[in-house]
């Protein structure tokens, strides 16, 4: 196996992210400086995102058996690197006052992004696991990053250990499933499992395949925090520092979903009726459990954790629909919704981390009381993000929901659509509760820390806000782009 210069060229975004980490590490070795490390990381991620965007037109090929560099993976590389850059910018003021070494945080963030880029470019079990573990390992560190800080009020160690133990168990199950598939197909590439029973290669029967697929599904469902594998989510979200939560909730979910999508399409696992039923049950359970449990939350991070469970359930409907429909509408719906979900989650967590820092997080809903009258700009952005999560028109969340409904209608999945309508209805209640809290008269005391509200942080949430509205009102260009790239799955 030789790697040519052309291959290297295609791997440029991945190499740029890796290089960024190396440069940042070297810089820390020469002289510890928080600002320099942050700038190196942010610039590197930006360059990587631009490189991926430039490569995007007309690149579609397998680079080494492990990585597929096509328009779809490059699209998500752009999205991942851009999101990681936004998170890095938001992290800067958050960690500024930390009474501990701060530079290594950016190394972890960079390495996690390397993992995420590998994940979105993977159509092979080896690269999937490599990417996943690279990302998870860095996330354990990011979640526990404030552990030595005396003033950190959260429980980062608890969150990190919980995440580590459960995530490792899930990885184990996932690996076991992959081994079983390997026993069946003799290859670690994602490949069709249908009709294996008829082939001459080691015939272990359909039941064997289904067990393998179930284990893989369970492992992935854990990482996506789908019910009933969602138990860890609220605790980890609540205990982690906000930028780490943001990373976990956005890039962590999106990259995993891309793997799930590629695997489901390549393996044709949905042709097994049992898997289809299981996925439908998981979708309904996630939608109902996520929305119902979010109702009573007083903590914003826990609320968002439960709402993310529900959102993952919604997207799962499109995966199921992709089996029933002729065209690519299911894949398009997933892609658009993931993009929408990234924008609105980044925005919501972004606002929350702007008003917080590593010594004090404002993550109770009551903290936001009267925000609309104290800081109208911030509150308007936050309101728009909440409305988008609820799927209200003028926002990208609505177009996303429209896509999912459309996929569901084409697939004639009436029960799942009914679950989604009920779930969204319940969802309105808790999103509106947050908005209502912001509209209430402002209390006398309790002004937020303004140190996080730097111009660059405002720039980030501002960009997200504009994206939210533009994609909500005039989504046609992005829809065309997604239609084009979805042909490669």
């Amino acid at each position, binding site marked *: 196996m030789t790697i040519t210069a052309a291959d290297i060229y295609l791997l440029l975004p991945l190499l740029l992210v890796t290089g960024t980490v190396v440069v940042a590490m070297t810089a820390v070795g020469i002289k510890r400086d928080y600002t320099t490390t942050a700038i190196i990381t942010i610039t590197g991620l930006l360059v990587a995102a631009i490189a991926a965007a430039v490569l995007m037109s007309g690149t579609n090929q397998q680079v080494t058996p492990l990585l597929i560099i096509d328009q779809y993976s490059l699209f998500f590389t752009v999205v991942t690197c851009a999101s990681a850059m936004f998170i890095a910018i938001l992290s800067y003021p958050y960690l500024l006052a930390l009474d501990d070494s701060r530079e290594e945080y950016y190394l972890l963030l960079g390495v996690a992004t390397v993992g995420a880029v590998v994940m979105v470019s993977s159509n092979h079990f080896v690269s999937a696991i490599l990417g996943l573990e690279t990302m998870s390992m860095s996330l354990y560190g990011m979640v526990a990053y404030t552990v030595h800080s005396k003033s950190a009020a959260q429980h980062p160690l608890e969150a990190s250990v919980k995440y580590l133990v459960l995530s490792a168990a899930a990885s184990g199950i996932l690996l076991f499933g992959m081994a079983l598939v390997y026993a069946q197909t003799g290859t670690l590439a994602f490949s069709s499992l249908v009709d294996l029973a008829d082939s001459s290669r080691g015939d272990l029967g359909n039941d064997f395949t289904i067990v393998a697929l179930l284990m893989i599904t369970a492992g992935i469902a854990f990482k996506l925090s789908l019910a009933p594998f969602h138990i860890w989510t609220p605790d980890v979200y609540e205990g982690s520092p906000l930028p780490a939560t943001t990373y976990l909730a956005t890039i962590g979910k999106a990259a995993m979903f891309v793997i799930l999508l590629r695997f489901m399409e390549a393996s044709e696992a949905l042709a097994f009726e049992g898997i289809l039923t299981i996925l439908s049950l998981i979708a309904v359970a996630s939608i109902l459990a996520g929305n119902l449990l979010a109702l009573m939350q007083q903590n914003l991070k826990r609320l968002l954790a439960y709402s993310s469970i529900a959102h993952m359930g919604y997207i799962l409907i499109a995966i199921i629909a992709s089996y029933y429909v002729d065209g690519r509408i299911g894949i398009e719906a997933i892609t658009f919704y993931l993009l929408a979900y990234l924008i609105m989650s980044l925005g919501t967590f972004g606002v929350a981390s702007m008003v917080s820092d590593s010594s004090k997080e404002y993550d109770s809903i009551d903290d936001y009381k009267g925000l609309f009258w104290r800081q109208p700009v911030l509150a308007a952005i936050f309101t728009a993000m909440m409305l988008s999560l609820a799927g*209200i028109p003028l926002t990208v969340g609505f177009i996303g929901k429209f896509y999912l409904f459309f996929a569901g*209608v084409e697939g004639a999945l009436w029960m799942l659509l009914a679950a989604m*309508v009920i779930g969204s*209805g319940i969802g*309105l209640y808790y999103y*509106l509760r947050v908005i*209502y809290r912001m509209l209430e008269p402002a209390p006398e005391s309790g002004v937020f820390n303004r140190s996080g509200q730097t111009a660059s942080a405002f720039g980030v949430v501002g960009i997200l806000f504009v994206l939210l509205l533009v994609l909500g009102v*005039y989504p046609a260009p992005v829809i065309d782009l997604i239609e084009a790239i979805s042909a490669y799955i």
Partner: protein
Amino acid sequence: MILVTLIAILFVGGLVAWFSERISPTMPRLVALIAVTLDLLLMFSLLGAGDAGGWVATFEADWIPRFGISFYFAADGLSVLLLMLTAFLGIIAIGAAWGEITERSGFFYFNLLWTLAGVLGVFTALDLFLFFFFWEVMLIPMYLIIAIWGHENKHYAAMKFFIFTQVTGMLMLISILVLAYFHYVQKGSLSFNYHDLLNVSTAGSMGMWVMLGFFLSFATKLPSVPFHSWLPDAHSQAPTAGSVILAGILLKTGAYGLIRFTVPLFPEASMAFAPYAMALAAISILYCAKVAFAQTDIKRLIAYTSVSHMGFVTLGIYAWNEQALQGAIMTMLAHGLSAAALFMLAGGLQHRIHTRDMSEMGGFWPKVPRMTAVAIFFSVAALGMPGLGNFIGEFLALIGAFQANITMTVLAAFGLILASVYSLWVLQKVFQGEYRNADFDDSHLTDLSRREMIYFALMMVGLIWMGMYPQSFLNMSEPALTQLLTSTQGVAVAVLQGAL
């Protein structure tokens, strides 16, 4: 283009109003008034004959070609009538808010104008996706109006209003999507265009389910029993201007949706469903009139009478003949004015004595003679006195409905009697009898100001005009109705022949 301009003026006007608060707290109301008045004046250019299909203005541009979605606005006589009602009541609502809204006025007028913009969009959008878009756009500002400037229980009321309309809205979205998918299956391409979708065959049980998705959404907005329970809460908690918009305009969007979309798009299913819809209408009329008696909160009482009066609209629509439809439209217009006026009176009372509880009121006549006179006028209008608009509407609706379903029409007609009873009962409770001043501070109980008199007079002129010369309104909606009726005629004949 004029239609887009009308909507854009309100959207931009809303933003300007919001920012103009920085100049002066009284600037926003001025900006809002100018924007809505400008809209109303521009609408006079729409008073024309229109083309063969009755369309006086259209605008079309690509939006999301992937799904066959376009910016397609068009107005016929029916739309124009409702557009003018919207702009007119918009001005009245600004008048109602003029002295009442003093806090955060910029944001209030922003919300008010955006609600109106959403309503204008609903009345003119002929792409179903676009229609749904505006259908939802008008919700959020309305939610904010109730949630911020409402009364003691505003959180509950705003939430209930939003969840009811939004959840049924989602069912409508699914129905719209299924309909577009029908078009894809039958014609080979996706389209959300109203005229394309009219050609889709929707017979069969699937058509019935899809129709119910639309019906549920519109019946909740209308509202019709059993989906009406959000309305009394929303009305009693909303500020006066909010009630005016809600009762005067937002309820009419539900009726408009039934006329424009539900019946023409699903003629077979609607014909089959008509007896049930008319039964719901009769139940709404009688039940809500009865419930109105039990209220002590004056705004809740008026809210229930609204539901009752809107029952005549549903009755007329599902009779689906020209007289009944004309009656439904006249009722919509007349009720828009009379309900708005009654809510303003109730709001005015609340503003003066800080209570809506009728058991604490009584004998106000000598203290506020002008207000009493106005109240008598509008109560009498609401109960259907000949010579005023409401009478024409309900009378035509009943005549038309009688040809379609005698039982339900006879039952519904009893609603007229109940209406006179509760209207006069309110007058007695509030304005006649002994004056009791023990329970509240009556130092602010002053008579109507000149500003208030002006907008009540405007509404009186409107109602008298409707009552005395209804032909000017009937002529406008007639071409549109003829068009709608011919589009469903084939089905009606087929159904009748099947019955014979």
